């Protein structure tokens, strides 16, 4: 018998599906870490993990982590430079994951204050958008 657990249920904010999350970045031996708290938009068009602004990358140097260069395709098929690192999603909304959290790809690019939560994370769950009631829900399909 399978059941689902509700991870998140929120109303739209300014007409958009948004939530808060907490992300952890660890250095290789796990001796140092930084925590990033971010308001993110649910973005089913983004195929990676979590996208946040580039300026937040400077904090990585404090713990000796160097993000790797790459490129990202933005809306309108516009290519841009981006930096990537491995991180852990510790909290989404009020839901906390067991430590160290869920492994995600963290993308640093641009200057938008709000981040994006992409399909690489969303694909672990069932996400339902309730347009008429202006709300959305994320459930975990595991028993």
């Amino acid at each position, binding site marked *: 018998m399978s059941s689902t657990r509700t991870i998140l249920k929120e109303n739209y904010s300014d007409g958009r599906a948004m939530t808060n999350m907490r992300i952890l970045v660890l250095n290789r031996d796990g001796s140092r870490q930084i925590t990033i708290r971010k308001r993110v938009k649910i973005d089913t*068009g*983004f195929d990676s993990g979590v996208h946040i602004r580039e300026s937040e990358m400077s904090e990585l140097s404090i713990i000796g*982590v160097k993000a790797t260069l*790459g490129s*990202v*395709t933005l809306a309108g098929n516009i*290519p*841009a430079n981006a930096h*990537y690192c491995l991180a852990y999603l510790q909290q989404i909304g009020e839901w906390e994951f067991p430590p160290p959290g869920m492994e995600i790809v963290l993308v640093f690019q641009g200057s938008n204050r709000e981040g994006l939560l*992409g399909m690489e994370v969303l694909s672990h769950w069932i996400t339902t958008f309730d347009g008429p009631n202006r709300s959305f829900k994320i459930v975990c399909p595991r028993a």
Partner: protein
Amino acid sequence: MALWDSLNVLVPKDEQSRIAPSRDSSLSADQEAAMLHPAHFNVDSTIEPASRIISLDRELRVGNQLGKIEPPEFPVDRPWLPQQALEILKKLTKGPIAEKELIRLMDLVADRAIDHFQLKEGGFVALTFLGRIVEVSDTRIGLLREIQGHKFTEEIFVWRVGFRSFSGRL
């Protein structure tokens, strides 16, 4: 004879008279010397001495003394890069370049490396700007897990095989 001296051609003495040009009796010794001077014949004196080719024992020797044929050097761990990529790389060594150019460089290098190493479409790869493959993985997370925290002697970047970038609105 000035010409033979300047070219250092070693010819057995008994043959010198046979192969040397015949003397025109109407020319003075100075005129003859001037005509035989390398400059007059437009001879490049920087060319390797002929002694390398013609030796006293009449054995023809080409190349190095051991007669070994050296294969040309070519990279086995990276592809040949297109001219445009090499030009951007050269610019990079002189200073920062525009974002557009850096993306173009990554695109060119990734394209050639993926083709050269016949990487599977949809996979994720970390590579150097000279096209050397550092790591390959089926997932973005797997790739970053392998490379994060490692120090590389060359700058690296990440790419998705068969796509125009590592992630985004694809």
